[in-house]
């Protein structure tokens, strides 16, 4: 029986290939995601490992609490600690280093890193350093630096050249003393590396008298574990002592959590959508082939094959298809990963990777998903095949007995819809881990898709008659026949359209949701910021604090204020965002949306232990005016704050807002940098912007914009993200194209005799093609309409849920129309091959065709 299945697959190559592609693409996305994220994880692991060579124990400052930040750190270590470390028995050598992020300026232009960081670190003695000098030497004098080989090559820099280095103290002119490779590579994942003297790094990056970390080497015979244990007892509690193996593992995990897991979850979600779309296509393909092979099954049954054997034959076919498709998908996934690597490399932001990482987990998950989906989708058609009675072999044009499933389909659909709705609601309203809530929401959405697909056959006829109206009206007989063809098997049309529906529903959801986000976020900035100029950091980073004074000194600037933000732990529980502002300068430039009778007068009372709380924060911790809460900062300081007022700002100043002084007490000095500087001006905004930009040349990471430009750039960022999401969702839409092609090819095959008759009585080839094309377009637009309706509905539900977070529901009508046109276009593309086949049907063969 299995051999029969394989023969069958081989005998229908085109159909098999089309059906397979539906799985291949989805599995490829999943496999590719794992390969890429594993590569990133391994790449970072390699870097951390390489950096740790020669170091046995690593000392940093213990974080007061762990949370939001990638490398939550409690700040810096006092220089004096180094002597204490050296005094511990078993320490062969120890060195303190200072690390910070900066920017490089060559010939007056800031070096673009394509999103990768510019890491500045002080040189360490050779035994702790992985820098291999290929020219010159490590910086020995203050004012000199060494740079990594990639920067030198890219910018044609040589030893002795002068470059600018962006620091907390403004731009420094430094002379290149040497050029080095990190380990054996010219860069760490596209990052720019600058090595300075310890004294320079401390002075430039506000770390006078401090080290970021201390590297320790053990004496021969002393294991890292022993030494770490001794250091732990000898050093004060704030010192975090880790063996280098441990810190490599911790750092890898931190990066993996921050980059890999987020990226992985997002990409897997898109892969999941593609797989579900594929499932619909497999279901449809098998439903049609089973219907077409009734006589074959009946013949087998009349020859003595049991129902079980018929079931095994169809399921076996699905399994074989799933297996081959999964293997192809894994191969394609590796291809995708390589392609993305090349892409990142091409834009100069190569993520650290470590060759192709095909983990056993990747193979297992891909196979399970691919084969599982194929089997699951083919189950219902396979069960139908078993119900073919042997006598059907004798009838011409025998039809399938209605399946057990179809009798209960309204009930199943209703159950799926209800369970889906509950699951979706649970995901949105019940508290739980983000992962489990996302899973619930995803499951809910999938069930709703299934339910809609099951009942969609009932709306196919009315929808088709509306969509087909222009075709029937203006394209004459072709249009009418196409419309009739689209509705003759509503279940098939519905299932075909459902594949496109899913892809489009997600696209529409994203579009509507993004529109709401854009509207709310941008309008929040517009509403709240009462300043002409906004200075922001590069890629969401901070601006050196010293820039604030520079901005204030610019002629034309009336007032300037920094917006400082840090994470704190509230009442020894969860973390929340704390904003620090100078009420005097900040107040007039910010329009608070006061609640409960508050006014700008409250800003005058914002001193010491006073806090203004955002509505959400107040609700979460049950706070109101006069009540208090305790916040723990990374300095290890706990501070009790008393609520003096409440405001609404779900997008910008979330959490609570305190005075600059209070903020500084809770936040380590090297983290006290503003995320934004806003400045008011009574002069022309454009002129002021230019003046501020000129003044901030010394701070290459600062980006100066007028408020209008800033909001525009925010919109642009959302749009860029959208483009990326659309690109990922395009895969699902492409899969649904294959689904439509598949269905049409099968339908054309099924209707060979009709086509022959139509051609015999005078239908031209062009008319024949048109009939198929219109049917395709009608099907795809049905999918488009269903998808749009579902997408808008989902977006409405989610937006309403998130209304308190400032997300509004707003429908981008223009875009929706574009999506529907795209859906129609999908139909045109999908029809090309089947239409050609229909037009080429040999009339004579067709008339005598059985």
């Amino acid at each position, binding site marked *: 029986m299995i051999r029969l299945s394989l023969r069958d697959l081989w005998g229908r190559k085109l159909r098999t290939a089309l059906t397979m592609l539906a799985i291949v693409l989805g599995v490829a996305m999943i496999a590719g995601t794992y390969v890429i994220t594993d590569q990133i994880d391994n790449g970072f692991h390699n870097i951390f490992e390489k950096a740790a060579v020669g170091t046995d124990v690593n000392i940093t400052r213990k974080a007061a609490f762990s949370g939001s930040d990638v490398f939550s750190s409690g700040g810096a270590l006092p220089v004096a600690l180094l002597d204490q470390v050296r005094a511990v028995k078993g320490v062969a050598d120890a060195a303190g280093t200072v690390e910070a992020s900066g920017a490089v300026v060559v010939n007056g232009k800031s070096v673009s890193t394509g999103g990768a960081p510019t890491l500045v670190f002080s040189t360490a003695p050779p035994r702790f350093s992985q820098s291999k000098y290929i020219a010159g030497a490590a910086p020995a004098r203050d004012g000199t630096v060494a740079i990594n080989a990639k920067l030198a090559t890219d910018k044609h820099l040589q030893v002795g050249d002068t470059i600018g280095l962006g620091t907390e103290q403004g731009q420094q002119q430094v002379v290149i003393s040497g050029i080095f490779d990190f380990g054996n590579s010219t860069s760490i994942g596209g990052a720019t590396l600058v090595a300075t003297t310890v004294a320079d790094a401390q002075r430039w990056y506000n770390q006078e008298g401090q080290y970021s970390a201390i590297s320790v080497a053990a004496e021969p015979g002393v294991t890292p574990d022993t030494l770490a244990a001794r250091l732990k007892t000898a050093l004060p509690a704030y010192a975090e002592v880790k063996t280098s193996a441990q810190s490599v593992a911790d750092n890898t995990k931190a990066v993996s959590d921050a980059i890999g897991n987020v990226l992985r979850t997002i990409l897997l979600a898109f892969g999941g959508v593609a797989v579900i779309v594929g499932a619909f296509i497999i279901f449809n393909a098998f439903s049609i082939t089973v219907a077409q092979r009734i006589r074959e099954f009946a013949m087998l049954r009349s020859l003595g094959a049991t129902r079980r054997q018929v079931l095994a034959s169809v399921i076996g076919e699905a399994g074989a298809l799933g297996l081959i498709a999964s293997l192809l998908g894994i191969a394609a996934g590796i291809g995708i990963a390589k392609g993305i690597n090349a892409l990142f490399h091409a834009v100069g932001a190569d993520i650290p990777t470590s060759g192709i990482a095909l983990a056993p987990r990747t193979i297992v998950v891909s196979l399970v998903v691919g084969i599982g989906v194929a089997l699951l989708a083919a189950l219902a058609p396979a069960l139908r095949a078993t119900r073919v009675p042997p006598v059907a072999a004798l009838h011409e044009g025998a039809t399938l007995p209605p399946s057990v499933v179809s009798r209960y389909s309204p009930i199943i659909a209703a159950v799926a819809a209800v369970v889906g709705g509950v699951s979706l609601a649970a995901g949105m309203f019940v508290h739980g881990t983000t992962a489990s809530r996302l899973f619930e929401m995803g499951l809910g959405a999938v069930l709703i898709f299934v339910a809609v697909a099951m009942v969609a056959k009932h709306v196919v006829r009315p929808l088709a008659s509306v969509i087909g109206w222009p075709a029937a009206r203006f394209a*004459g007989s072709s249009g009418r026949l196409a419309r*009739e063809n689209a509705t003759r098997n509503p279940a098939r049309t519905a299932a075909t359209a459902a594949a496109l529906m899913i892809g489009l529903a997600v696209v529409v959801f994203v579009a509507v949701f993004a529109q709401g986000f854009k509207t709310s976020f941008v309008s929040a900035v517009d509403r709240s910021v009462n300043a002409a100029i906004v200075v922001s950091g590069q890629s969401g980073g901070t601006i050196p604090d010293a820039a604030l004074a520079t901005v204030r000194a610019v002629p034309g600037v009336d007032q300037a204020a920094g917006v400082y933000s840090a994470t704190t732990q509230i009442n020894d529980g969860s973390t929340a965002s704390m904003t620090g502002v100078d009420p005097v300068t900040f107040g007039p430039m910010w329009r608070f949306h006061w609640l409960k009778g508050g006014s700008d007068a409250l800003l005058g009372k914002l001193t010491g232990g006073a806090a203004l709380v955002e509505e959400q924060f107040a609700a979460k911790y049950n706070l109101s005016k006069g009540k208090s809460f305790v916040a723990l900062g990374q300095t290890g300081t706990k501070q009790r704050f008393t609520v003096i007022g409440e405001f609404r700002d779900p997008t910008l100043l979330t959490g609570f807002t305190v005075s600059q002084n209070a903020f500084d007490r809770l936040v380590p000095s090297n983290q006290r940098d503003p995320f934004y500087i806003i400045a008011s001006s009574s002069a022309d905004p454009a002129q002021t912007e230019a003046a501020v930009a000129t003044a901030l040349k010394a701070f290459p990471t600062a980006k100066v914009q007028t408020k209008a430009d800033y909001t525009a750039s925010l919109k642009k960022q959302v749009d860029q993200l959208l483009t990326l999401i659309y690109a990922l969702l395009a895969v699902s839409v492409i899969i649904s194209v294959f689904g439509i092609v598949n269905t049409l090819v099968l339908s054309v095959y099924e209707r060979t005799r*009709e086509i022959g*008759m139509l051609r015999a*009585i005078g239908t031209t*080839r062009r008319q024949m093609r048109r009939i198929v094309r219109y049917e395709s377009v009608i099907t795809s637009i049905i999918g488009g309409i269903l998808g749009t309706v579902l997408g808008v509905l989902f977006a409405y539900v989610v937006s309403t849920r998130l209304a308190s977070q400032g997300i509004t529901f707003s429908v981008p009508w223009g875009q929706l129309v574009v999506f529907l046109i795209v859906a129609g276009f999908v139909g045109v593309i999908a029809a090309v091959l089947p239409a050609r086949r229909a037009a080429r049907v040999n009339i*004579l063969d067709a*008339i005598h065709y059985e």
Partner: protein
Amino acid sequence: MSDVRQQGIEIVPQACERPPSTPEPVVGAPAVVVARDLTRRYGTGDAAVDALGGVSIDLARGRFTAIMGPSGSGKSTLMHVLAGLDNPTSGAVWIDGVEITALKERQLTQLRRDKVGFIFQTFNLLPMLTAKENLVLPLTIAGTKLDEAWLATLVDAVALGDRLGHRPSELSGGQQQRVAIARALVSRPVVIFADEPTGNLDSKTGDEVLGLLRRSAGEFGQTIVMVTHDARAATVADRIVFLQDGRIELDCGRMSRDEIYDTIKSLEATSERGDGGPAR
């Protein structure tokens, strides 16, 4: 050749004649379908089969012609070539004065649409269209306006008045074939080709359908060419052409069922003696 003739003469029924050895000139012929020296060869080399071995025939306007012959005699091939569904290996066909064997695909399709009607053994109605929609399908495809009076006449003739809104699956075989006949008539083609129109029907329904075809030829002056191996069916024809081994063996006028049976039998006898195969 000559002794075949001599032997044949004994068995040629009164209404029949041997086809002329040299065809008449085309010009001025009153025929709406004219074929000259049609050969049709399938395959190449040793596997080549000559389905038609040089057939010439003229079909006069308003006449109902039956083409008979055993399986493999080439009757279906002849009809396909005459109707422009298949291309002859050599020879030419004119329909209504147009040499269809010289036409391109597109023009041929147009000619079929405007001048030819078809009736198939398996009815070939579109399942998703109603009887009426199926009936007017050729006009719909051509984009021509419907002549309501003509439609009424047709509907009346095929006695489908109350079934017009039904889909083919709700109609009996005979009803379906009557729709198919009306469909062939609706565009008032120059000629209708019917391929075993009673092949899928029981004898009573078959007779009804044949009666309808007969009336179409009589009342509407419709030229009809019917391929059949059913002697009953052929009795309604004005002219019966017997094919054997790709050649016209006999060309007869109206015949009774018994005459047809006898003719078939004697042709089979000729064939079995092994000397009746002119195509060899």
